[in-house]
């Protein structure tokens, strides 16, 4: 036998296996991607909320994409407290100004950034929120101050449609 023949075969084998692997990957992708959020879940992307009934110092919780969103109407004292903090000392440094559109209204996703529990209102060592699951303390700007959570509570995309209505998403 000449040297050439087995080489050609090896090439054919390798090429066949390679095509097989690519083919398997192409078939696998739809099977994996079907688990991602479907069109109906994505369609629920925005909600409008009427704020007229919320009194200063109160928080309302609404559902957005299956998650709670906290909307707090902060008192002037609370705003002052949120802004008096030295940003550099924070675990996840972020000024209160960066976290609100209108200082009176704090709008954030009410989900602990540790492992996803819903923190409790007006609790904890920093006059903000406290997560009972593993003990994360958030301040009145929703910033993480103490505990295992790595980051501040997330701010969703939102805008004021008019003075008394916001649209989340």
């Amino acid at each position, binding site marked *: 036998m000449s040297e050439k023949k087995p080489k050609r075969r090896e090439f054919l084998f390798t090429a066949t296996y390679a095509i097989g692997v690519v083919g398997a990957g192409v078939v696998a992708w739809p099977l994996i991607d079907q688990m*991602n959020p479907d069109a109906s879940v994505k369609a629920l992307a925005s909600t409008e909320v009427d704020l007229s009934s919320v009194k200063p110092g109160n928080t309302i919780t609404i559902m957005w994409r299956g998650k709670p969103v906290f909307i707090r109407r902060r008192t002037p004292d609370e705003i002052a407290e949120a802004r008096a903090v030295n940003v550099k000392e924070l675990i996840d440094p972020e000024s209160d100004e960066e976290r609100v559109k209108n200082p009176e209204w704090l709008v954030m996703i009410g989900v602990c950034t540790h492992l996803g529990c819903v923190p409790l209102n007006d609790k904890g060592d920093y006059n903000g929120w406290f997560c*009972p699951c593993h*003990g994360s303390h958030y301040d009145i700007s929703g910033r993480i101050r103490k505990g295992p959570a790595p980051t501040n509570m997330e701010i969703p995309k939102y805008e004021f449609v008019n003075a008394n209505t916001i649209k989340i998403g």
Partner: protein
Amino acid sequence: MSDHEYTPKSKAGKWFNDRLPLLTLANHLTDYPTPKNLNYWWTFGGILTFCLITQIITGLTLAMHYIAHADMAFDSVEHIMRDVNYGWLIRYIHANGASMFFLAVYIHIFRSLFYGSYKAPREIIWIIGIVIYLLMMAAAFMGYVLPWGQMSFWGATVITNLFSAIPLVGEGIVTWLWGGYSVDNPTLTRFFTLHYLIPFLILGLVVLHIWALHVPGNNNPIGIDVKKPSKDTVPFHPYIVIKDGFALLMFMIVFAFFVFYTPNILGHADNYIEANPLVTPAHIVPEWYLLPFYAILRSVPDKLLGVIAMLSAIFILAALPWLDTSKIRSAVFRPLYKQFYWILVADVLVLGYMGAMPAEGLYLLIARVATAYYFLHFLVILPVLGFKEKTLPIPLSITEPVLGGTPNLAAAKNKESFKA
């Protein structure tokens, strides 16, 4: 494997066996030579098989009435409890059966640790066992989500969020697992699918586990190699079958006690409240069998490192055959290892207790010490012990220690005459 050739007695049997050697397999299983000194800690393999079959049968019957939908799951479980004939019984067996399954697997694992059953040539048996254990945890976790109570929902949220600790792709993975932006109906339906599938995967692995076991044969309380078949062994049937059967009956008494007298003691009252995505219960704790790992997760103040520590605590077990450098298997002949073994048992129990307590103050401190000790045991103590420890002389055969060390041939003869 039995060494002798087997031929079925009947003609039909022979005809069949030549085409599909099932009878050879059955003969192998009945004649399988087993060390004659196996104690009751060796009966948990059979008990575990019973637990798996029990979960599959009760699970299949529950699945005939259960509805995997976020709006209906909770009600369908109540329907099972109140309306379905014997539904309460089937569900209580299934729910408590998961706990009994873990009780048995923990005893089985700690038996292996004590008698060095994970050492050569049984590493593959051990590793398959660890994979089974991981799948059991996955099955139990997803099963607990199905009744769609408060603990179901928040347990699912917290555990799936562990993946968000992975840098860059973490959030994407969590969204993919959920099929949405939070735990919701798509999560429930896929968990039901996987909960249904995993026990059958476990069943397949159990076959491999036993196959791998039948290559070298059982380890035994004194941990020496046994010649098979020999005076040191007895055939599996009837000796082990009867002993396993007796132990199983005792186990079933405990099982029945839970099912009939305190069916909810191992569960959590909050799970009789329907899932509410807006309110997290004040104390979320996993089922008791996951508590030691939960304690490890919480004792590390950093999110990613906590997850890594928790997973390492499980995966470190797979490396155990290489971490333990001692050639002697059984702790009976390892005076130091024996003490460290019991410290480890205590350590895991302490971790379990701390996992159920709030993660603060003294509890947190103790959990941290216990976590550190857990890793110290596997990563430092075991490797060093193999070199430093002065082990006791091991007997040459199983029969030797039974006869008090000095080979007394007359006594040996008498003993042998008991078994025919």
